[in-house]
């Protein structure tokens, strides 16, 4: 079978599976639409959350990013996993006990204020919209590569599929499709890594291969990549360029941001009780770790193979796959010195670099470099699409429920019936998808890449500290919460906008902290402002204080329905 046929088989088969699952588990009531009736098993929810969490960018670009940045990339590895420890110990068990369907719901009730709810709705929509644009773009790019469609056509097909099962099926529909998507992703990611590890290090476990020796000459893999990097004018892989200050703040901002992302938090409202929440969060992190522990190995192996097969190779003698990636523009060769030989050099070398490629190449090209059979490449393509679709679906759900439940039902029109609420959620998800697809087709230049800093910075400076104080402090009142949130968001947004869009220079950085890490400072500002305002304003009402005491006790977290 040809490569095209294998790709089509895997993608059509996986889509058929998702659609069948979505139809079988579509939602009937708001409870099912928002939280899948709280009857999902901890294991299934763990897989679904892992799929939700790992976006197209994580799946395709993370390994390549690690390969280039070396030690510096540890901030993403630790930040995006360590956040789950905070999430599990400080957030989700208590929010689940509170037994409401959305994050703004908690803010509105705990801080007895429509203002707090509205701020929550705006933050949730903003965070999720910035995220979902990148996902739609990712789907479009993969589709266009595979079926030789235009990117806009790919985006539209992807949006239609997401609407079909997320918009119609709600939380119940997406949970079970995400379980299937996680399985596809995990196999698609680890199988090429195992083959690459075997070929390069003789070890079947990629993580052990990374700390082992090369088969060819017995040199440790990490020493090999360090040598390659210094020889070609890059900084040593195991060292790092970022200052300790920046490493600390960026890692911290990513961690607290992760613990405050609404589309991750709501996933834990789908399990039966508080005990299941803790169990499910543990499964989630374990499933995420499978991919995160493999990523550094994939990156290093692919970089060694790539440089090995391309550097100092005459352009006429390049491997077959090179032209494939050249055609799609993912790799380019420019013969600057006119000798017809590819030279790849880093910034510290004075010779010109002639080879450029994006971070996505390490994952996309590694099966070709390891000369794996076409069906593995087909599986990888299905994995890319699964990663993009699962994240897009989870984000879409938060946007639509924030609009239908928190904005429509709780603020604008309290008379809305259950059925009308579900209908408005579906309409809201259609609207959100159209906006996301528009930006997927016409990405505002490099805007999407920069907005990741926005999403994490906002979550870190708004949701994380405010939820934390709402859960752990009986004394925190609505004035403190609202002022704290406003102060945290304003500071973080202003800092990011100034440096990303208004031409701020690195010399002006506060304590030398980049916009990526500023969310952590925003969080501290939120805490301080909230504490000061709270100290000079009246205590919250007695029933609110009793409610806070009640969420500290795990028992009786509301009814669940069986699936």
């Amino acid at each position, binding site marked *: 079978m040809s490569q095209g046929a294998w790709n089509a088989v895997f993608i059509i088969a996986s889509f058929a599976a998702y659609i069948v699952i979505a139809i079988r588990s579509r939602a009937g009531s708001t409870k099912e639409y928002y939280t899948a009736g709280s009857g999902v098993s901890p294991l299934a929810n763990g897989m679904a959350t892992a799929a939700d969490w790992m976006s197209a960018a994580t799946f395709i670009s993370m390994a390549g990013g690690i390969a280039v940045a070396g*030690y510096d990339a540890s901030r993403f590895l630790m930040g995006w996993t360590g956040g789950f420890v905070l999430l599990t110990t400080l957030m989700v068990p208590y929010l689940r006990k509170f037994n409401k369907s959305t994050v703004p719901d908690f803010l509105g009730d705990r801080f007895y204020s429509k203002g707090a709810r509205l701020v929550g709705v705006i933050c949730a929509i903003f965070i999720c919209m910035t995220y979902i644009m990148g996902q739609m773009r990712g789907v479009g790019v993969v589709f266009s590569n595979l079926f030789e469609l235009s990117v806009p056509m790919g985006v539209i097909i992807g949006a239609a599929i997401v609407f079909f099962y997320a918009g119609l099926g709600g939380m119940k529909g997406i949970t079970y499709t995400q379980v299937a998507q996680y399985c596809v992703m995990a196999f698609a990611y680890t199988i090429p890594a195992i083959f690459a590890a075997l070929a390069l290090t003789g070890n079947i476990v990629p993580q052990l291969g990374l700390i082992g020796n090369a088969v060819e000459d017995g040199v440790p893999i990490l020493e090999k990549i360090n040598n390659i990097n210094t020889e070609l004018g890059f900084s040593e892989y195991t060292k790092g360029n970022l200052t300790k200050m920046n490493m600390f703040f960026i*890692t911290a901002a990513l961690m607290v941001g992760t613990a405050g992302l609404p589309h991750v938090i709501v996933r834990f409202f789908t399990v039966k009780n508080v005990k299941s929440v803790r169990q499910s969060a543990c499964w989630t992190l374990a499933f995420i770790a499978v991919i995160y522990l493999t990523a550094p190995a994939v990156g290093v192996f692919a970089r060694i193979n790539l440089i090995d097969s391309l550097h100092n190779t005459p352009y006429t003698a390049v491997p077959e796959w090179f032209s494939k990636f050249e055609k799609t523009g993912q790799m380019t060769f420019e013969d600057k010195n006119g000798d017809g030989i590819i030279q790849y050099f880093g910034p510290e070398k004075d010779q010109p670099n002639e080879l450029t490629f994006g971070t996505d190449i390490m994952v996309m090209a590694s099966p070709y470099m390891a000369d794996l059979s076409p069906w593995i490449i087909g599986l990888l393509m299905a994995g890319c699409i699964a990663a993009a679709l699962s994240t897009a679906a989870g984000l879409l759900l938060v946007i639509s429920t924030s609009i239908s439940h928190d904005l429509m039902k709780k603020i604008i029109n309290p008379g809305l019936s259950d059925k009308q609420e579900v209908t408005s959620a579906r309409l809201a998800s259609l609207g959100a998808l159209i906006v996301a697809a528009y930006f997927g087709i016409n990405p505002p230049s490099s805007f999407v890449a920069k907005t990741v800093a926005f999403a994490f910075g906002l979550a870190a400076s708004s949701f994380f500290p405010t939820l934390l104080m709402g859960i752990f402090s009986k004394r925190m009142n609505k004035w403190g919460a609202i002022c704290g949130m406003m102060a945290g968001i304003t500071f973080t947004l202003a800092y990011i906008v100034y440096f990303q869009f208004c031409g701020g220079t690195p010399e002006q950085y506060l304590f030398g902290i980049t916009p990526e890490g500023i969310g952590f400072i925003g969080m501290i500002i939120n805490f301080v402002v909230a504490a000061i305002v709270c100290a000079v304003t009246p205590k919250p009402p007695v029933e609110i204080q009793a409610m806070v005491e009640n969420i500290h006790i795990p028992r009786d977290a509301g009814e669940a329905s069986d699936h």
Partner: protein
Amino acid sequence: MSDSEQTTTHAAKYWWAKLRILLGILIVWFLVSFGCGILFREWLDANMIKIGNAPFGFWMAQQGSIVCFVLLLIVYNFMMNRLDAKFGYDEKGGDV
């Protein structure tokens, strides 16, 4: 002592015991990630045993911390379930 006061102190004791466990978990969380992976990395790279061929601090930053996070959550689950049972707040279900 009235009934309601008794429940309050019972719940308060439970809450303090819980906070102690959380504090312990978060201290370890901080040490394995920020401590080993960032703050003391150079010292650990130079002075600690290597994991395979990887310097200790570097390995902690890229692999070890993630493994520790998973182990931490397993310990957390175990300790929380035991605490809930001890105070009579445990629930049926959630197995799998």
